[in-house]
């Protein structure tokens, strides 16, 4: 069998790549995709730990994470759609009405 450390290291790498993608990308949709990558990296770490320790609980928690991610995607994409209707753009550079 494969050591659990490999899976943990892979999940670290995916999480860090998600962070990099979130900061490099300039449009809301791709940044949202980067958030999904980070959630998936967390799922992978959960399942690797559960497989190495012999718990089943982590699988239930991953199930909840996937459910909440689906709900979050629905609301987040609706908000992105609303921003696009109002501003005709989803670039983060043009969202400066609060002087951020």
């Amino acid at each position: 069998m494969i050591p659990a450390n490999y899976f943990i290291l892979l999940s670290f790498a995916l999480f860090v790549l998600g962070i990099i993608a979130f900061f490099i990308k300039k449009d809301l949709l791709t940044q949202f995709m980067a958030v999904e990558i980070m959630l998936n990296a967390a799922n992978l770490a959960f399942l690797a730990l559960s497989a190495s320790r012999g718990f089943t609980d982590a699988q239930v928690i991953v199930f909840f994470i996937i459910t909440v991610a689906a709900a979050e995607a629905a609301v987040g994409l609706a908000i992105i759609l609303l921003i696009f209707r109002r501003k005709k753009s989803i670039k983060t550079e043009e969202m400066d009405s609060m002087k951020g």
Partner: protein
Amino acid sequence: MMTVLFFFLAAVCLGSVIAMIVSRNQAYNALFLVLAFAAMGGLFGLLGAPFMAVVQIIIYSGAIMIVFIFVLMMINLRQGISPEKRKWTIGLAVLIAVILCGEIFLAAKGFLAASPSPETTAAAGPTEIGRLLFTKYLYPFEITSVLIVASLVGAIVLAKKREKE
């Protein structure tokens, strides 16, 4: 055999995420992400969680990414990403990533350094998950259903067109 499969799936997963970072076309980004999530489903299967593998492929690379692509089609960005890329954000991203990497390694050093690295064993199947879901995690399960209904209503209210403004 398992090890070869693991390295293949890990390479597909990391490669498609890196391709997503490099590519500027949002439709390609979404498709790369579908590939990454499908490979991640394979990794879940290798970890002895076949139910989670199926859920990952159906919900993540199926449902969620389809919703992304639908929104992408509605938004219909013709102009693409602005050609002038500010270099300092890339520097900032790499800096934050390096700091985060260090922090994660400090936090997980104990686990990673455990001399006999724990091997992945076959975990329980769907039967055990279902039993846990309806006994120990019954309240979170019910609250999740309320959350789903709330997000459904919220998404519809947010995205519908106003009749008169």
